[in-house]
């Protein structure tokens, strides 16, 4: 073997995080599903994915020697969050020295209910949200990734919204607008002991399950089963999703299933193979 085993984040069989094949044809769309717990926040992973897209590799992980930016041909990322305000992302992306014209942050938290939900019918709420994405995604070149944090909150915010309606009127049309859609969700609802199996919680669970089925890769962040350790924050598991990978040519690209332990510190995140 030529090199020592590297503990870099690798998601696909071509040793990459976001393969170039995904961006070759705008008719193909792939869904990533990131699930996490309240105790294992996914900001570092979101940053790493944006870095991998904009800069070519996730330099912030393992304090990799960041080679100064080669002019990447694919470039744009749109981040939308229902749980964090704009500055949450802008500050952390600035720290990583990602040029601000390479990303766009949509804030669906500040005054969201008052401006976007109150007194509006369901289909209009979802249509307006989609329009905000359309405005943020540049038409050409078609190489944008969209990251949306906790869209499942819409099921709680919008009266009478079902998982199928949310999928049909929002998630699926959004996926069609970009090559890669990354849905980041908090899966705590599955871990609440004897929660009441109301129509609402089954609606939420159905949303997670249907998203998993539509996704081609799942990244799940979980705390250690034993609680916490000083040198480990949690585990990152990379698994195949329920759908095949869509690429224009018949590449043998597949998901590399793996499990990492990670340590998140103030300035950096380190990954180790489990």
């Amino acid at each position: 073997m030529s090199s020592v085993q590297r503990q870099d984040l690798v998601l696909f069989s071509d040793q990459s995080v976001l393969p170039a094949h995904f961006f070759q044809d705008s008719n193909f769309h792939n869904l990533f599903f990131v699930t996490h717990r309240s105790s294992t926040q996914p900001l570092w992973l979101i940053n790493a994915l944006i870095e991998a897209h904009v800069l070519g590799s996730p330099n912030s992980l393992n304090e990799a020697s960041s080679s100064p930016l080669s002019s990447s041909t694919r470039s744009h990322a749109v981040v939308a969050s229902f749980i964090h305000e704009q500055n949450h992302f802008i500050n952390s992306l600035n720290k990583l020295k990602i040029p601000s014209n390479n990303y766009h942050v949509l804030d669906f938290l500040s005054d969201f209910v008052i401006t976007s939900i109150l007194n509006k019918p369901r289909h209009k709420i979802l249509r307006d949200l989609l329009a905000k994405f359309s405005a943020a995604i540049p038409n050409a070149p078609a190489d944008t990734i969209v990251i949306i944090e906790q869209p499942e909150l819409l099921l709680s915010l919008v009266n009478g919204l079902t998982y199928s309606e949310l999928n049909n009127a929002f998630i699926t049309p959004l996926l069609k607008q970009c090559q890669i859609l990354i849905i980041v969700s908090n899966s705590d609802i599955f871990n609440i002991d004897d929660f009441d199996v109301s129509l609402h919680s089954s609606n939420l669970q159905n949303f997670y399950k249907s998203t998993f089925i539509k996704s081609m890769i799942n990244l799940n962040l979980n705390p250690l089963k034993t609680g916490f350790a000083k040198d480990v924050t949690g585990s990152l598991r990379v698994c195949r999703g329920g759908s095949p990978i869509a690429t224009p040519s018949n590449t043998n690209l597949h998901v590399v299933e793996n499990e990492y332990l990670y340590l998140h510190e103030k300035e950096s995140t380190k990954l180790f193979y489990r």
Partner: protein
Amino acid sequence: MASSSHNPVILLKRVFSLTENSPLILCLDSMAQTSYRVVEEFMYQSKKKGNEWSIVYISFETVNKPSWCTQFIDATQMDFVHLMRQITSYLPAASATQAKKHMVVIDSLNYIATEHITRFLSEIASPHCTMIATYHKDITDDDHAVIPGGSSNYPDKLTLLQFMATTILDIDLTLTGDLDIEEVNELLNEFRIPRGLNNDVFQLRFVNKRKSGRSLEYDLMIDSNNHEYNLLLNTEQEEQESGNGLETPEMLQGLTTFNLGTSNKQKLAKDQVALPFLEAQSFGQGGAIVYQYEKDDDYDEEDPYEDPF
């Protein structure tokens, strides 16, 4: 009960290649093993058979149009009436005497409301059309409670579909790692997705309802890489066989201080003993009584009552 007159693997291949007449094929899948590999098997076997069917794909979940489909209907943005109109415009009329065969792939039936499901399927169904419909078992049927004017005794969607389907392919995961099925279920319930789901090799419970009303049920192992199908003995058959099976030496160990086991040499000797009833079977056809007179026998040929037989 399995019928010995059918080879399940051949029957499954006939279903996959659409040679076997089965208007509604229901693929029941879950997060652990989704149905797309099964749908690919349909395409592979049909192509191998040389079928030239038109394929209409009704999609609620898939955004990438599969290369093999003739018509791709994006059903997410349509209401039910509009969707039905669009689907039927691609299909030949049910009353047509001769028409090209059509395959309708539906992904997935979870998105059709319970109140519409029977109408949806019956409007598509015709002698010229085979439906391959996916239903996700682990997504619950929310709208069941809100059927307008519906009776509370009305069955849920899954029961209804299982009743209507002529073939049911219940897809299940084959475990590859060191987890057992209970651990996998526990992890899935907590949504801590384990590795090793959605494999190329998986299990299939195959139920084929015959015209007579009898249904055949088999467990098969599918390898979607090599397109190989193998019959698994289902639990009932396994139990029967192990019940009749010979005891193994391990079963007798530690029971007593005596040696209850049989050595290989003893087994061999036991096998070579010719049992009397086996000899009797090789006697030839029919039975015969051979009576040999002994010298002291007093036999009178003219006495009708003295019949030695």
